[in-house]
């Protein structure tokens, strides 16, 4: 399993640049489409764009994944008109924390852990970071702490969904394989 996952790392510089652009566009599309889906709670999103973050962590590494996440959050908020707003702060905090956490877990524990496990950790880190952001900027720590249970439970579901998606994507990608449509 470890050998398989490591083989997904992209080494060609040209492919990385092209792949980066494609993944960024894909993340934005996923974010937009997800926004159209109805949810019982407004903030209870699956975070499908994080699939791309996870793919970037596996295929490109930490720096590219962090950059990708930052750009994705910025572009999405610019397009939605929420740049530098509260939602933007939470998305940025969550996304960046998730990217770093997923990279760390991926590098340290991926052989026993699979992509789904990495994604779950990323989702949990994402939501906890958002709760911390809310507690720091908006309400106090005590009020924000009441969000933790819901945040963690939603993270479990979201991490599972995005992890499965990323898993099946990675299962079909091999280095050197041409992308055919």
């Amino acid at each position, binding site marked *: 399993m470890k050998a398989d996952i490591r083989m997904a790392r992209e080494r060609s510089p040209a492919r990385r640049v092209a792949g980066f652009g494609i993944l960024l566009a894909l993340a934005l599309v996923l974010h937009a489409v997800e926004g159209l889906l109805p949810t019982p709670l407004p903030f209870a999103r699956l975070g499908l764009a994080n699939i791309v973050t996870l793919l970037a962590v596996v295929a490109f590494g930490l720096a590219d994944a962090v950059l990708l996440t930052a750009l994705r959050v910025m572009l999405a908020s610019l397009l939605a008109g929420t740049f530098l707003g509260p939602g933007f702060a939470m998305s940025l905090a969550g996304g960046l924390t998730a990217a770093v956490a997923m990279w760390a877990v991926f590098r340290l524990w991926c052989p*026993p852990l699979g992509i*789904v*496990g990495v994604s779950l950790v990323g989702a949990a880190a994402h939501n906890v970071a958002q709760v911390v952001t809310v507690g720091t900027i908006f309400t106090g720590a005590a009020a924000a702490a009441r969000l933790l249970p819901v945040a963690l439970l939603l993270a479990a579901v979201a991490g599972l969904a995005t992890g499965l998606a990323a898993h099946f994507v990675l299962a079909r990608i091999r280095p050197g394989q041409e992308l055919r449509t």
Partner: protein
Amino acid sequence: MSHPFKRADRLVFYAIVALGLVLLLMPRGSGRPAAVVVEGADGFRVVVPLSEERTVEVPGPLGETIVEVREGTTRVVSSPCPDKVCIAMGTASRPGEALVCVPNGVVVRIDGGRRGGPDATTR
């Protein structure tokens, strides 16, 4: 790579869910400091934090009921009612406890703070 759920993945999933459930079921304080709410006739209302020391004179149809907040408890010091039940009720200090003078229309209750904990125990 067609088996997405490794054993470690399951563990992580259950750990997150368990953590969420544990935090959900933990008792919590309401975050507001405990305070004494003194209400009288005609919309009279005074809120005194339990940490303060204050004497409140509550006007009512029979006269003035005097309520004292001191050392984290509150009690009725004097009241123009015939039976003085409110004085006999003693002190109130925990959220939910109350002292009432019905003839003079005075209600003294403790609000906010941490709920939970038994009201009394026997052995």
